[in-house]
Structure formats: structure tokens, C-alpha cells
């Protein structure tokens, strides 16, 4: 139960991580951390996280997104968010994290924002 699915694909110089399911304490958060760590190791530094199919996030999940953001930035990369659900939008908003993350509703706009 309670699993996170992660589909990876590449668009130009950006790696898109399409998440589905739950980003919660335990499994979900760990899986996301591992996926981002591996991509950074392989030199993929432009990461776009598609949250459209995530149906549940708790404070650990939000914390994990923050961690991934920081790790990516510290390695000279960029991590941005695509397709926030209303729930995630609310959770980020009340903790002032919308001022931290760059977020997009359109994949094309998001990809363009990373530059060539």
C-alpha cells in the first residue's frame, strides 16, 4: 500500500519526474530522495517534478520536496514543480514555500524556463 510511482523522461536538457501516489513518511519520501540523488550523480541538473498524479502528501513529503530542492541547488542545478494539485498548492502556500519553489501549470512554460 501507500506507494509512490516515479516515471522519468527527458525533454531537451530537462529531466521530468512524473510522480503518482503518495509522498508520505517512509517509502514515498525515501523513493523520491533516491531518484533525485541518482539523477544528480548522473549529471542531470535540470529537474522538473510533475505532481499532477500525487493524491496524498504529508509534512514529510513537503519536507522531502524542500530537501530535493536544496540538494539540487547546492549542486548547481534547478528543481521546479509542475501541476500542483489544490492540496499541495495549499500546503506549500501556508508554509510560504510558494516563495521558494518555481511552479508551473504548463509543461511547455516550465521547459522554456530552464533555458536552452
Amino acid at each position: 500500500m501507500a506507494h509512490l510511482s516515479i516515471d522519468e523522461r527527458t525533454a531537451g536538457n530537462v529531466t521530468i519526474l512524473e510522480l503518482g501516489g503518495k509522498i508520505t513518511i517512509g517509502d514515498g519520501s525515501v523513493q523520491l530522495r533516491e531518484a533525485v540523488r541518482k539523477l544528480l550523480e548522473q549529471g542531470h541538473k535540470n529537474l522538473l517534478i510533475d505532481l499532477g498524479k500525487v493524491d496524498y502528501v504529508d509534512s514529510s513529503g513537503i519536507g522531502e520536496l524542500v530537501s530535493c530542492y536544496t540538494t539540487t541547488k547546492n549542486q548547481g542545478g534547478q528543481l521546479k514543480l509542475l501541476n500542483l494539485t489544490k492540496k499541495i498548492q495549499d500546503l506549500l502556500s501556508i508554509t510560504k514555500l510558494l516563495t521558494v519553489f518555481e511552479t508551473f501549470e504548463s509543461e511547455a512554460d516550465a521547459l522554456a524556463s530552464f533555458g536552452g
Partner: protein
Amino acid sequence: MTDTIELTIGSKFDFIEIVGSVTKGVTELSGFDEETTNWIELAIRESVINAIKHGNKESAEKTVDVTYTLDQVALTILVRDRGRGFDPTCVPDPLDPENLLNPNGRGIFYMKSFMDEVEFSKHPDGGTIVRMTKRRTEPDGNGKGETGSDGPSID
């Protein structure tokens, strides 16, 4: 009339889903709408995660009790652990700019955002009790019925 449901689990994160489904069942019975139900579920999950993680430190033989009490005015949920307790006034503010990128420290803030009241106390036999309340009707008693989109206030 008052209805009470009690749930006791061991200190394992595996059981969080079960707490979630009981919370959902109780809030639906209480007549809260879907959005409010989701936020209440999140608040209770956060509290039970804290009880398992910080309170009982995941030691298998220590239990967490969750008690749901529904009366005409409100749904009240108590979460009790067997830990050492803590001082809730010393918890750092997650909105403080220097904490904004902290991967932890948002659980209690979410609990307070989504519930009408959150109180921490110590059980006489040890452990923390978190008492969370969600009102069923508007606080000014204007008879507006169930709280509608009583979610977080977004700026």
C-alpha cells in the same frame, strides 16, 4: 448525544493508513465536507506520526491511542503517546525565513492550521496528549451548519 470511537495501535508507521481511514470514516459520519475531511485526516496523521516518531521513538511495545469524540458542537480527537513529552512553546516557527528550507518542522503548524484548536498536555502516567478540535457549526452560532471550506487561509 455523544459518540466515541477509540483506536489503539503499536508504534509503526505501517498503521498510519489505518488511522487515516478511521479518521475519514468518523469525519464523514460527522457531516464534514470532503475538503474539510481531507484536512482533518492530514492533521491527525501528523499528530500520530509525531506520537510514533518523537513520542514513542518507534519502540514496538509502546502504543498510541487515538480517541474520537463527536458531540453536537465539535469533533474532538485526542492522540496519546507514551513518550517523555516536550515543550510545545519551544518548537521553531516554520515560517521564520531561516527555517523555510528546513526539511522538518511543519507537522504541528499544519495541525494548527487545519484544526480549530490544538492543545498539548502531559498525561499523569506519562506521555503527551494532543487534543484537537474541529467545530461542526460556525463559532458565532449563526446556524450556518457544517463548516464549509474551512481549510487553510491562503495568502
